């Protein structure tokens, strides 16, 4: 580890810290304000869009209506992206003349982009037309991110709304939230962001691929396309689905150290800001900062571990008497160890999944960090919206486990946490072990699963666990080393992504629906404080314990065993 490496990490965090309050306030105005920003310019657009869809913006929805709207919209999205892929050979904007995508892969990709996962079992530049990329994938990058924010805002409303005497049953209107999130937040920022990326050398054209002869005299095809526009939302919406197969390691996606920093920053920007928005909604910004602090502690723990692990020389390479400045395998020389370790941590803290280095080539412990980050539920800032609602479920658990110790039945923000919320939270918590461990266990013993592995032994197990963790966690990054484009993997991962998105969103919205009508008691000296350092510490422990206790046995057979075997000179 070097001082310069740490300075990069600290600079990145300082930027995130700086944007949290202003962007958080902006989001608060967008979703909760009486009037939205830029009423003259964007207001009419919003009204026309809602009118076209026949939505009355004043009509709020109950949690069931809200959930059904979201599910209906998602089903429509899956079908749209599926059909675009299946029919791309007859649709325009296909200069390379790519054929239709096969049914399993098209299903996998449609699910992947609808669930904000962006798991890519395909190579973008070698199989998708520009239309599919833009109208299918980039479109989903926007709306799946906005849908995540909708769920977070709805849950926040559930906790923070104070019901009147007749009780409160509604959580807002999904369609209104979806339009506002896209129109006021994602689109304007991405417009500026994409222009910045173009200025740094990111591609933005609809041209056919170019044939070039390199200095060495070899013929090379350079892929082209509308990259910058997709790249911006890929990061800001924590989507992570690269235009190119190499993702942010590709120089046309992420050409300079500056774009690398901005890409990292844009992953955390909205998730961090949402904590402030939440505090604002709770009428106590310290509530939001407590969540921010818990996320920050976990972020620094992860990045320190990953950076330290990657700074170690690979014992196998060291044995070959090669001088190394740490583990550079699978990393871009222009980013180096610090920025690669940081990128791997950030992209898995959030459910982004973009990569600028190959996680498969990390040391055993270095690769453990992204895996654990995902398995903790991607609550370390997390996906846009998904991070906040995931963390709030952890808050419910923390409040319940420790809250009794103050001699009152558990309450959060003055609302009681009762059997119903506990049931829903446990359903949420169960999805991860059920899907990741369940499918992982199946894949580890059946030939359809094991045959896709490039590596044997514990490293192969890490690849399996990573794939299902990434799918269920809606992360989308790959450990690589696993040929996921087989019917078994496409379908099982598709199911994992669906479960990880919707089976978790439904209980979250149900919690929101159950909480929103509860009476609020003003906090006093006798109530459990959830806005201080003590609570932050408790929350961190609960996140770690719930995650670690669940996955520790499986991890000990994967990265942990690999680490100790590696120390003893055994490689896979």
């Amino acid at each position, binding site marked *: 580890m070097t001082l310069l490496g740490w300075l990069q990490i600290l600079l990145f965090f300082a930027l995130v810290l700086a944007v949290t309050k202003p962007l958080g306030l902006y989001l608060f105005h967008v979703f909760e304000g009486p009037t939205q920003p830029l009423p003259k310019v964007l207001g009419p657009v919003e009204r026309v869009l809602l009118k076209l869809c026949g939505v009355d913006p004043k009509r709020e929805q109950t949690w069931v209506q809200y959930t059904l709207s979201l599910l209906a919209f998602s089903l429509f999205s899956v079908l749209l992206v599926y059909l675009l892929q299946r029919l791309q050979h007859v649709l325009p904007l296909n200069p390379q003349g790519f054929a239709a995508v096969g049914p399993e892969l098209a299903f996998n990709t449609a699910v992947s982009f609808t669930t904000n996962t962006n798991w890519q079992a395909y190579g973008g530049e070698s199989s998708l037309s520009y239309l599919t990329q833009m109208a299918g994938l980039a479109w989903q990058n926007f709306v799946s991110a906005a849908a995540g924010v909708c769920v977070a805002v709805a849950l926040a409303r559930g906790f923070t709304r104070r019901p009147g*005497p007749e009780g409160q049953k509604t959580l807002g209107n999904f369609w209104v939230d979806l339009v506002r999130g896209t129109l006021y937040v994602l689109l304007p920022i991405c417009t500026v962001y994409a222009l910045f990326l173009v200025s740094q050398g990111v591609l933005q054209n609809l041209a056919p691929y170019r044939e070039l002869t390199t200095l060495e005299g070899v013929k090379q095809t350079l892929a082209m396309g509308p990259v910058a526009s997709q790249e911006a939302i890929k990061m800001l919406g924590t989507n992570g689905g690269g235009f190119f197969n190499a993702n942010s390691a590709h120089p046309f996606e992420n050409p300079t150290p500056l774009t690398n920093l901005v890409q990292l920053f844009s992953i955390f920007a909205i998730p961090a800001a949402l904590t402030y928005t939440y505090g604002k909604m709770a009428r106590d910004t310290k509530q939001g900062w407590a969540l921010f602090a818990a996320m920050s502690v976990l972020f620094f723990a992860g990045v320190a571990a990953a950076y330290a692990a990657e700074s170690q020389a690979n014992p196998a390479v060291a044995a070959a008497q090669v001088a190394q400045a740490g583990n550079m395998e699978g990393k871009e020389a222009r980013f180096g160890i610090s920025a690669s370790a940081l990128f791997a941590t950030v992209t898995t803290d959030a459910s982004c999944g973009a990569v600028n280095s190959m996680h498969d080539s990390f040391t055993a412990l270095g690769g453990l960090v992204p895996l654990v980050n995902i398995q903790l539920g991607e609550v370390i800032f997390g996906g846009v919206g998904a991070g906040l609602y995931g963390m709030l479920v952890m808050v419910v*658990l923390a409040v319940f*486990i*420790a*809250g*009794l*110790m*103050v*001699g*009152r*039945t*558990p309450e959060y923000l003055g609302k009681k*946490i*009762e*059997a119903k*919320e*506990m*049931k829903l*939270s*446990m*359903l949420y*918590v*169960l999805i991860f*072990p059920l899907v990741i*461990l369940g499918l*992982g*266990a*199946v894949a*580890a*013993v059946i030939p359809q699963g094991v045959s896709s592995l490039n590596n044997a032994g514990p490293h*192969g*197990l890490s690849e399996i666990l990573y794939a299902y963790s990434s799918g269920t966690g809606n992360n989308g990054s790959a450990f690589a080393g696993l040929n996921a484009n087989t019917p078994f993997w496409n379908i099982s991962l598709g199911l994992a992504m669906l479960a990880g998105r919707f089976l978790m969103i439904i209980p979250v919205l149900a919690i929101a629906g159950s909480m929103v009508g509860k*009476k*609020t*008691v*003003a906090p*006093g*000296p*006798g*109530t459990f*404080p959830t806005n*201080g350092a*003590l609570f932050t*510490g*408790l929350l961190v*422990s609960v996140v770690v*314990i719930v995650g670690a*206790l*669940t*996955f*520790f*046995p*499986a991890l*000990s*057979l994967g990265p*942990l*065993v690999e680490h*100790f*075997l590696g120390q003893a000179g*055994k490689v896979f």
Partner: protein
Amino acid sequence: MTASSKPASLFEPALLKQATLDSLRKLHPRDVARNPVMFVVWAGSLLTTVLVVRDLITPGPAATPVWFTVAVTLWLWFTVLFANFAEAVAEGRGKAQASSLRKMRKDTLARRLVDGREERVPAPNLRKDDLVVCEAGDLIPGDGEVVEGIASVDESAITGESAPVIRESGGDRSSVTGGTKVLSDRIVVRITADPGESFLDRMIGLVEGAARQKTPNELALHILLVGLTVVFLLACVTLVPLALYSGVKLSGTAVVALLVCLIPTTIGGLLSAIGIAGMDRLLRKNVLAMSGRAVEAAGDVDTLLLDKTGTITLGNRMATELLPLPGVRMEDLAEASQLASLADETPEGRSIVVLVKDTYKMRPRELQAHQATFVPFTAQTRMSGCDLVDPHPRGIRKGAVDAVIKHVEAQGGAVPPALRETAARIGDAGGTPLAVADGARVLGIIHLKDVVKGGIKERFERFRAMGIRTVMITGDNPRTAAAIAREAGVDDFLAEATPEAKMELIRTEQAKGKLVAMTGDGTNDAPALAQADVGVAMNTGTQAAKEAGNMVDLDSNPTKLLEVVEVGKQLLMTRGTLTTFSIANDVAKYFAILPALFMGVFPEIAPLNLMGLTSPYSAILSAVIFNALIIIALIPLALRGVRYRPLGAAALLRRSLLLYGVGGVLVPFIGIKAIDVLLTAAGLA
């Protein structure tokens, strides 16, 4: 109360014997199935037992040595037994407490009135609305209401108070409790509860594990525990194929051991004992609760409505000062006050005599020596005093200031303005002025004051620290009320309280989302008792009040409300601490068992064996033994409840997290290592 064996030892031998038998009886699947966490342990034990049998029948090169499987199996069964034992001990203690109350109402023969004729029936056969006759010497056969007659009743069996009380039809003193004894006269009692539905019967139900319904918070906690159990079940079951991939063949025994150690058996095994013990603690304070829900609600109470009289003040006003008018000698006022009060048996009267004697060193004199006649207080005169003949005829009076003024003016006396001024000053300070007159001459004023109970202020401070607001309810005027409220340190007061005003106050508080607790005894308290979240009715109160509330205090002591709140808080805190402890324990258990499982195939992971346990077998066995023993070790804590501390929530949480969270991580590291050392020393490694 007869059962005032209050600080009974936690483990009486007879109780333990019964509990041991009960814990075996509770191995029945029907009983175990009530607790899903322990059911998993039970099923796991059964599975390893089958494995033991298999290994014994087909002895071959078993993957694991038979002694190991046998040892793990035994300790798994012990785990179930220990949890059963905890519940049985709690139940036993509760039942012992309740049965001493119940015993009284058996063997009684009731005299039931049917169409005007009496017939003898055993008390348990009485139904609601039966009429029974009780005469001097009879035990009252069941809870009921006096519908005819008046009698003195000895309630010492219930309250421990030896002085008999009057029970009469109509009014606020009509309620009688089964098991109390009529000392004089004859009453007809209407039975108000069917057998099995009286307060006592319900309370007994609350301390019996089998019949007990889970309280709302207990249910929520249960869901958490079941959820965690399913998570660990998934983690352990999937570990088998994952290990198989890695070339590790896990034995059934080892997987069951890992599962049992990980699922929250500590809190799962003690949860029902904690609940029963909470009810039992309440019972020991002579409070009967209608439901466990009410006890939990007591822990949540935000606002306490406390009647001034009897709870905050001693109940009677006491003379604290004599204030002579200008030109009157103190001795004259003191003498007149004493004479006017000597025959006055009211507490106020007695307090005047005591004040004069103690402060003004004037010994009481014999009234007869002065040929005095006592003039008692009446509602018309609102004065009392005495008329003397010797040495010269005098009429001495004390009483309400306006009454005395009228009395003096009627005899042609003048009233100096200083009298009214002094009276107003006392009134402002929350006291009651009593004017004293000798014939047509006003001498001065006796200052009567409500005396706040000792220690009550400190007690309210404790509640304030916990965020509980205290509101004093009194019929006094606002000035008086404010002064007493200030002195007692309550947060707020409701003066000139009517039942309607009280009800309104409860509603307003509840509308703000607060939980309200109160005590009451009269029929006019009933609506408020029903509206309050915790309503403690006095046993001496009316049947209506008792039915409206959700608890009954057998001692009829309004201060008990404070203790009820503490019991509720203690119950919740005990659950919280043991849950935290139980979950924190898992960290160490992982480090004991996981290296042991994989060390055979991957000896390189030895560094994960943080505790340096001797062998894989001793490691797993030590974790299982620790897991079982910790249940036994925590039974006393579960039964007594964690000590309740009047700290703010933040301080309390910091303390508990340190003790039970951090402690919960560390203790098993030490415990498991110690057991491993012992096992190694015993050659079992």
